[in-house]
């Protein structure tokens, strides 16, 4: 797993795409931060910016995950990986953690924003930390879905478009479909499985073990699906 992780991380950092992701991430984050935190709400609570960033991630995540599996297929390097004495789960986890490291790296570039909040206001340490934890968990679900989609196709563009479409579909379901549901039980179930509504706990300053388990299990489930797809290819 370590070798795959190192290889993927090097690939991100020796490739302009990694920097494009970091640049666009910081750009989106900064624009939202300046408008929401500094100008509109004049609030030292960073969760407001993160609440909007989860929408920006719809565009950013496909950039990060589109090549993870499909590039291997397109360049036929997957044959090497699949025949190597490495478990499929190690390959997938290596790629997953490499992508998550890039997300964490992007978050490092948001520290100047926090410094400004500390200078101008009084952001609570724990509330800020929880907003970051929530965002990392949310991103982990997006990354795992992205890897799964990427494992289904060898075309990076198709992978990116499909990932974006699925994220948009999930969001549309949450925004357009769920509100119109008349049955309270169905409404509760569907809003309960909504990724965005689960994030609200973290943005409010409430650490909810149930939401943590939900995000962790959702990420696990899609990583598991990816392992199954990879295993299938290995033994095909």
């Amino acid at each position, binding site marked *: 797993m370590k070798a795959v992780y190192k290889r993927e991380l090097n690939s991100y950092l020796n490739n302009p795409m990694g920097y494009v992701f970091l*640049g666009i991430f910081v750009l989106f984050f900064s624009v939202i931060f300046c408008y929401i935190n500094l100008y*509109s709400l*004049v609030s030292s*609570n960073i969760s407001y910016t993160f609440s909007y960033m989860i929408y920006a991630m719809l565009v950013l995540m496909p950039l990060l995950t589109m090549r993870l599996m499909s590039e291997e297929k397109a360049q036929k390097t997957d044959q090497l990986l699949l025949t190597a004495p490495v478990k499929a789960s190690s390959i997938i986890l290596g790629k997953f953690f490499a992508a998550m490291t890039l997300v964490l790296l992007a978050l490092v570039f948001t520290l100047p924003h926090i410094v*400004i909040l500390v200078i101008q206001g009084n952001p609570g340490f*724990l509330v800020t930390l929880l907003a970051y934890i929530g965002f990392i968990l949310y991103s982990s679900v997006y990354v795992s879905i992205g890897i799964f989609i990427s494992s289904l196709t060898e075309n990076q563009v198709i992978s990116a478009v499909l990932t974006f479409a699925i994220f948009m579909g999930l969001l549309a379901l949450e925004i357009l479909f769920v*509100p119109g549901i008349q049955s309270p039980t169905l409404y509760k179930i569907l809003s309960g499985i909504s990724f965005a509504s689960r994030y609200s706990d973290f943005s409010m300053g*409430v650490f909810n073990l*149930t939401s943590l388990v939900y995000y962790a*299990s959702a990420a696990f489930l899609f990583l598991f699906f990816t392992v199954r797809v990879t295993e299938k290819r290995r033994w095909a």
Partner: protein
Amino acid sequence: MNNNKIKFKAYGAAITALVIVAVILLNVIFGVVGKRYNLKVDITKGGVFTLSNETKNVLDMVKKDITIYYATNADSRNTGYAEILDNFAKYSKHITIKDVNIDLDPNFKKTYQVESYNTVVVECPNTGKKRVIDSSLIEQSSNNSKGTVATSVNYLESYVSAAVLYSISSDPLDVYISVGHGEITENTTFLDHLMSMLYSEAMSVRVLDLTAEQIPENADMILIAGPKMDFTADEIKKVDDYFEKGGRVQFYSNPAYSLPNLNAYLNDSWKIQINNDCVSDDDGKYLAKSSIGSYLLPVIKESDMTKYLSAIGAKFRVQEGETNSIKVTENKNIQANVLLTTSEKGISLTRDNWVKKNSRQSYVAQNNGEQTIMIYCKKNPLNNESTTARLLVCGSYYMLYDNFIDPSSNYADKDLVVKSINYMSGIEDAPVSVASKQVLNEQMKVLEIPKLVSYGVILVAAIPVILFIWGVYVYIRRKRL
């Protein structure tokens, strides 16, 4: 070979199905456990999503089933409000929370006269009482210099706990606020603020114009706040008749105006003299600066009415100088309890001398020593000894000033007003009012435009551009290799 493939596929499908079921089960279990036990940690500074002890005291009194409806729609649903309401149901088994989408259930909207999304209705079917808490009451924001929200205060817990108390009580207090004599409550802002504050404390509040109306039979309390014009003999008779029937009055004086008729009545019937003076304190510990002068921080005196507030170290404020001192003459028929005073270095000044003191000129105090600011008296009326008349006199109407009774205030003027109304009405163990809580919106210094622009340039332009340039450098280096 085909058999192996089928076996592998079947095995894979079974494993996948098992994992899916396990993940769903895990989440269902955590969902159920989370509903029964608290799996959440509230890390907000003010504990916005944790019930306060005052609310728990109210909920401990609930023995009848109560339904709390959260009337909203999917777009406007506030997860923070839902979280706070869930805490009520988690704490008391008698409370049920029901989400109502008023777009899909117009009957509910009509029946409960819900006017906006995010309205909360508290109903006790047993007593048939309900209270509708409009969304405009729940969260109130103060604007910064740019006209945008700087801080917002959440009153939901405070309003809901009061509504719970109201819905289970068999007979809520009927409080009448006097108008018609230039009272501060003739100003609609003050009146609205005072009415909504008392309403939030489970009281029924109405306006009473003594110049034209009789005091209603059901009046539990009459509040007279800072009148500028004197009461006529006829109006005083109405008040006196009300006392004869065991009435309760709170009178907050307006130091800028003299009311000879009313003062004479208070002196004759209650042996209370409201001095035409301005009270200050020479001990700086009992003064605090404010944007409208400075506050006088009175000393609370031990009494049954104030013992709880005294125990929790509650602090009060009135406006320095805009406060009259009160004197009471001992009388065997009247039981008087001093509630608030100045320190022992208190001073009573004529208005001229107060103006001089305020402008740092030399002045002469007409009276030095502890000055009484608030007093509570009770007596058995002469013609009706079976009842008890109660009167609270405060030397300053500022005690009811809108900012002073704001639940978000650090001072407990509101608590004293509420506690005294409840106490005088015989509800001695009424839970003290539930304080509002500041929501997550932490206030920050408003940035001047040049600073905002410089931060914007660094964050929006400099950092992303550096990253893009770095990306281009990596791209060029790779091409050269």
